[in-house]
């Protein structure tokens, strides 16, 4: 023990200080209740006005295995993952040695002093934490002692980095939904630990945090909750779902918020229904049924569930059923890495179904956008009478992000072309469920309960004419498919357009989707510093709009950044634009962790020979 303190001493204090710009990883075992502590630290930094992001790297397991929580503070507002740690908070003996590999030289290690250390810590600064003693001192009730150990490192780390304890207290209150008693009992331990640190540890390291101007207009939230809230403000009426990591918390958020927000003011009854199905074959079946019947219908799942939904999604495409499918991606193939993040379902989702099936896919990149697409998805699917897949991922869905606060929808709900009794009575021409009256490929639909004599029809996944009657006629088949394709092609320009970040005189294009955005924005800045100007286009929807082709053509080279092995986005872009495009170089990468700016910077620099 001593000898390690020694070693820290030996190094002596490093020169200078680093303020609001470092990455701290807290190493614990899962099921130990560290989540609250970690979020409290994260929130406290946020409350100090410091841009911050937290990423939870956890095992597919309930209790007892290593788990890591990385907090990045960045005065410049970079929220992407970084692969190294400046500070390690070590509560887990199992991974002590391994974790040190990620620690930068001159970095810091806080560790529970009951871990007996054998490792050599020459070039890091070490702060042992007398966790057990402090817990004893605080005399915490038996059953809470393990849990409260986490509050010890909250206190010590706060003290050593300069996190204002008042802010920590405030964060605890938010954490415990303003239940003061619990918040206070936690804070008591935090305070005790902070005071111990103040009196017993000498600051040797260079890392500090300082209050910055408040982050007005920002909140802390995760993408699944945001998606659920978006759906609620989008007027969702039915959700059939089945539990699966990392999508579960989306449906559970619906369960949590819908009863508060969507009871009928008059009757006090629910104007929505949520059903936990027996599996995904059933959850998608329910969702298709509800969508057909005229409800704003949704389901949420991840890769394995999407696979099971393939046949029903093909039916929904062909019978033209509006519905919203949230795919919160994890890493495949197969069961793969259930608790890691990726973007490997793009191809399957786009083509989901046998025969000639294609789906509209919209792809949020921020928690705020999860909310926005949460409500927009319904308008799009009902406008085009087809399923809309919202493609999120674990990093976006399950991690707590600082994000712009949710904006109330800027336009009223659009139910698309639905005809009730009167509409049918006054309809401009002969109505048939699958008749293209407006020339846009989008027919008018009626839904069950419509008592107009002409309203009823029998929907089916088999060949049908304009009136929904069974048909095997070759021409009728082809015309129907062509109309559906027309509808699909028309959608291109009406889906969320790409977001483009330009730089002066850039000849190189960066193209990506979803949660790789923070890493890419950071890479843009740093590549520029290295003399490589880039433009960055974040695609937000498939099929793509003309801006996408224009961007691709207007750059000498385009790099396609995505978290998968096969370069799936690149494949889709080439099939769309092969004849016309400049080179598309794939920067696909997958190992289950979020994208880092460094990977992009190195990959591009190499290829650009700089």
């Amino acid at each position, binding site marked *: 023990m001593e000898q390690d303190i020694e070693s820290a001493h030996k190094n002596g204090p490093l020169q200078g200080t680093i303020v609001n710009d470092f990455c701290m990883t807290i190493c614990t075992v899962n099921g130990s209740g560290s989540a609250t502590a970690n979020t409290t630290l994260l929130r406290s930094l946020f409350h100090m006005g410091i841009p911050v992001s937290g990423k939870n790297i956890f095992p597919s397991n309930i209790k007892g295995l290593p788990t890591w929580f990385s907090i990045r503070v960045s005065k410049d507002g970079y929220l992407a993952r970084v692969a190294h740690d400046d500070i390690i908070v070590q509560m887990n003996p199992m991974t002590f040695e391994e974790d040190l590999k990620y620690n930068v030289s001159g970095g810091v290690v806080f560790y529970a002093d009951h871990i007996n250390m054998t490792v050599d810590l020459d070039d890091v600064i070490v702060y042992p934490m007398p966790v057990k003693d402090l817990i004893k001192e605080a005399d915490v009730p038996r059953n809470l002692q393990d849990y409260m150990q986490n509050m010890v490192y909250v206190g010590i780390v706060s003290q050593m980095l300069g996190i204002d304890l008042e802010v920590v207290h405030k964060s605890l209150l*938010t954490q415990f939904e303003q239940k003061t008693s619990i918040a206070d009992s936690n804070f008591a331990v935090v305070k005790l630990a902070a005071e111990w640190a103040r009196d017993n540890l000498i600051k040797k390291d260079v890392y500090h945090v300082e209050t910055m101007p408040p982050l007005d207009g920002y909140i*802390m939230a995760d993408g699944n909750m945001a998606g659920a*809230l978006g759906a*609620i*403000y989008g*007027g969702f*009426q*039915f959700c059939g779902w089945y539990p699966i990591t990392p999508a579960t918390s989306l449906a559970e958020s619906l369960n949590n918020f819908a009863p508060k927000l*969507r009871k*009928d003011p008059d*009757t006090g*009854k*629910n*104007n929505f*229904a*949520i*059903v936990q*199905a*027996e599996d995904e*074959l*059933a*959850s*998608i*079946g*329910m969702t*298709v*049924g*509800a969508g*057909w*019947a*005229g*409800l*704003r219908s949704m389901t949420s799942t991840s890769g394995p569930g999407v696979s099971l939904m393939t046949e*029903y999604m093909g*039916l929904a495409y062909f*019978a033209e059923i509006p519905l919203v499918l949230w795919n919160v991606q994890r890493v495949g193939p197969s069961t793969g890495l259930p608790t890691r993040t990726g973007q490997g379902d793009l191809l399957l989702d786009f083509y989901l179904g046998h025969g000639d099936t294609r789906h509209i896919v919209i792809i949020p990149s921020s928690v705020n956008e999860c909310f926005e697409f949460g409500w927009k998805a319904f308008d799009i699917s009902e406008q085009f009478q087809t399923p809309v897949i919202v493609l999120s991922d674990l990093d976006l869905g399950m991690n707590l992000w600082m994000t712009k*606060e*949710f904006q*109330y*929808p800027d336009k*009223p*709900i*659009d*139910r698309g072309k639905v005809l*009730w009794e009167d509409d049918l009575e006054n309809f401009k021409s002969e109505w048939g469920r699958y008749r293209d009256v407006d020339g846009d490929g989008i027919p008018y639909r*009626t*839904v*069950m*309960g419509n*008592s107009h*004599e002409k*309203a*009823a*029809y*029998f*929907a*089916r*996944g088999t060949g049908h004419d304009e009136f929904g*009657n*069974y048909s095997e006629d070759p021409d009728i088949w082809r015309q129907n498919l062509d109309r559906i394709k027309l509808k699909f092609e028309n959608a291109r320009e009406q889906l969320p357009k790409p977001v483009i970040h330009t730089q002066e005189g850039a000849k190189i294009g960066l193209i990506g989707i979803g949660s790789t955005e923070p890493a890419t924005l950071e890479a843009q800045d740093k590549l520029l510093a290295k003399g490589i100007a880039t433009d960055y286009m974040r695609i937000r929807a498939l099929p793509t709009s003309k801006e996408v082709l224009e961007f691709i053509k207007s750059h000498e080279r385009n790099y396609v950044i995505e978290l998968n092995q096969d370069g799936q986005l690149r494949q889709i872009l080439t099939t769309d634009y092969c004849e016309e495009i400049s080179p598309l170089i794939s920067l696909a990468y997958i190992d289950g962790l979020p994208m880092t700016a460094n990977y992009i910077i190195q990959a591009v620099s190499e290829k650009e020979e700089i």
Partner: protein
Amino acid sequence: MSDRRTDTNTIGLTRTDYRGKRSTLCPGCGHNTISAQIITACYEMNIDPHEIVKFSGIGCSSKSPTYFLGQSFGFNGLHGRMPSMALGAAFANTGMKVLGISGDGDTASIGLGQFKHLIRRNLPMVYIVENNGVYGLTKGQFSATAEKGLALKRQGENPFLPIDIAKEALIGNASFVARSFAGDPKQLRELLKAAFSHRGTSVLDVISPCVSFNNREDTLHSYQWGRQHQAPLHDIAYVPTRRAIILEEFNEGEIKEVTLHDGSLVVLKKLEHDYDPTDKWQALRMLEEAEKNRWLLTGLIYIDPNQHTLYDYLDLTDEPLNRMSADRLRPSPETLQQINQSML
């Protein structure tokens, strides 16, 4: 008797208003008889076709909804997965009557899981299995209800014990379980009426011979075998309201009544032995016995008129959700402000 074509029921509809397209099933297919009885039952019950919604899976049986209730909405879904689709749609308007048509392959082979979970949720709907022991539409392979030892062209002999739809429903806590036979239209019609009046999942296992692939007189799902071995539990009559009972029809003591959720009654006239369809235990025993003696046991096997349904659990508005105006679906801006506040 008066002219059936021009007669109207109390809501002013003729029998023709309940018909569908011309059947493309094989002449003599049991499924056609069932379609006819659905038409008659709905006509006689004065149900407005717009208040019924039809669902089916895939198979000859599942095609049949095209051939009745042409004025009702319907959806011909996927093989074995009609229950989930019906369940999702049902929420759009809980006032409508949901009618599901399936086959034995559709329900007992690929669909067994969804069938059992539908029953578990007790969604109010009439669920008919048109049971012929084979896959008709794919030309006569064994289904999971084919009896052990059944021999079919090009299929050899079936070595497996059959899945008994009624038993599966009972053990799964179904609130309404009946079995009937396409060769007994009258009983089928009365059972259909009872099913339409029951609040909960009404399972009707109807033996419906496939004349093209499984109608040899010595096989369980054939017309002849059915006629020779049918053992009705009772004479069943559906009575829309108590007032409507003409007492003479029944001598005291010989009848048992069950009052359904909508106030209608099922009147059961005793045959050989007493039978109480509200006793699940007896129901199982009868089925067991019937199997031993190779009877085709028909009638209302079990009913619990008061079991909770899925709707009870979800505390839904009675108003049709799919007619709710858009503005009522979106919470106020203030609520979102509060949420943003809570996430600092």
